[in-house]
């Protein structure tokens, strides 16, 4: 690929998987990402894993942010990651947020999710994560790096 200029914004899909009607968190994150100069594609509520992966594919997104407050993250996040890999979208960088207990996070990192942000995370931290994830190599969901961001909340 030819080099892209610094002014090229990242395309980021922010998605709400599953039966979860609370998207204030997703909107706050979407807004912060937008204000940092990115192009944020918001899916709306209650999307299936397949719908989210289709969106990432058609929109050529570099990042996917998943938000869950329903407790179904253990099921839905790995499913999205699995589908991304199946469709060859291995280089998409995935992060998550919402009500996700600390004890649940390890298995999600193992699926290729590179950060989990809990309530109270400063939005600046998410931006730092975005920067770092793009500077490091092989941080896509299906790529070999075992790096992940240790979040403050």
């Amino acid at each position, binding site marked *: *690929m*030819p080099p*892209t*200029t610094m*002014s*090229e*914004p990242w*395309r980021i899909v922010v998605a709400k998987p599953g039966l979860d009607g609370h998207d204030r968190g997703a909107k706050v994150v*979407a*807004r912060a*990402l*937008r*204000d*940092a*100069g*990115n*192009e*944020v*594609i*918001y*899916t*709306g509520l209650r*999307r*299936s894993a*397949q*719908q989210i992966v*289709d*969106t990432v*594919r*058609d*929109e*050529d997104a570099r990042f996917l942010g998943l938000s869950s407050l329903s407790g179904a993250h253990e099921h839905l996040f790995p499913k999205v990651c699995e589908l991304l890999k199946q*469709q*060859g*979208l291995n280089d998409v960088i995935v992060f998550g947020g919402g009500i996700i207990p600390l004890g649940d996070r390890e298995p999600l990192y193992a699926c290729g999710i590179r950060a989990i942000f809990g309530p109270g995370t400063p939005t600046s931290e998410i931006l730092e994560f975005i920067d770092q994830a793009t500077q490091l190599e092989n941080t896509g969901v299906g790529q070999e790096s075992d790096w992940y961001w240790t979040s403050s909340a």
Partner: protein
Amino acid sequence: MFEFLEQAKAGDRRSLARTLSALENGSLDIEQAIDVLGPVPTPIDGDWQTLAITGAPGVGKSCLLDGLLRHWAQRGLRVAVLAVDPSSPRTGGALLGDRVRMTVVDDVELNSLIYLRSVATRKASGSVPVIVEDMTKVLLALGWQRVVIETVGAGQSEVRCAALADRIVVVEGPARGDGIQAEKAGLLELADAVLVNKSDLPGAELHADEIRESLELGTGHTPPVHLTSALQGTGVSQAAELLLTLPSSGRSTRARWRERLLAFHERKILESPQLDELLEKLAKGSILLDEALRIIGGENDE
């Protein structure tokens, strides 16, 4: 060099998405793309290939388009949508929310026939209408039969995007002011058809009548005015049929060519290899604006 072009040609959707990104960020130009993908097919019997759907924020463009797409896909048409939204002039970022209302892209029976791509106007990095035009060519060359460009009808870039399309549909809603509003110059002048959405609300019929009255005063073919309610689904399939065979009103040919000429001129300027140098000189005050234009123009004559 551009492996994704071959894959896009073979039908891979991700490679299609990548091709559009490459056009957007300038790493691929349209000639290179067409070289690999083959030419844009010529339209059949004067049918349109590109349709702009435009109108003020909140009139229900996305919801309505969702209904139209569903109808067209059920007829087996392959339709691509470029949903254009403004980038923030301050930060360059954008929140692209058209997908929230586009439920048809989630319909597993139909979504192989529909491609939806959100496009931010990115005012800083290039000429949006021209990029949208190039994206349209790629989609047509890849076998998408119709391309719909959805834009908010506010701002020069957005109007110019609409002017590039073969047909322009303006979406209106009730309670958008009195009859005088319909008489005011603007987007309505460019319309080949007007859809008055939210017909379930009071005032829609009246507003449609006012628009009809205004349009009938013009010369030539009067654009049809049709009532729809995207919410209740009334009038939507009729509108979809009407739009498929919509003729050009023939009224705004000059106005559209004006927009296209301006877009073309803007492209010449933005793509000039001397642009940076000229901006530098302009900033220092060592040349004047018309000299700069002459230099850009002269170079294209060579």
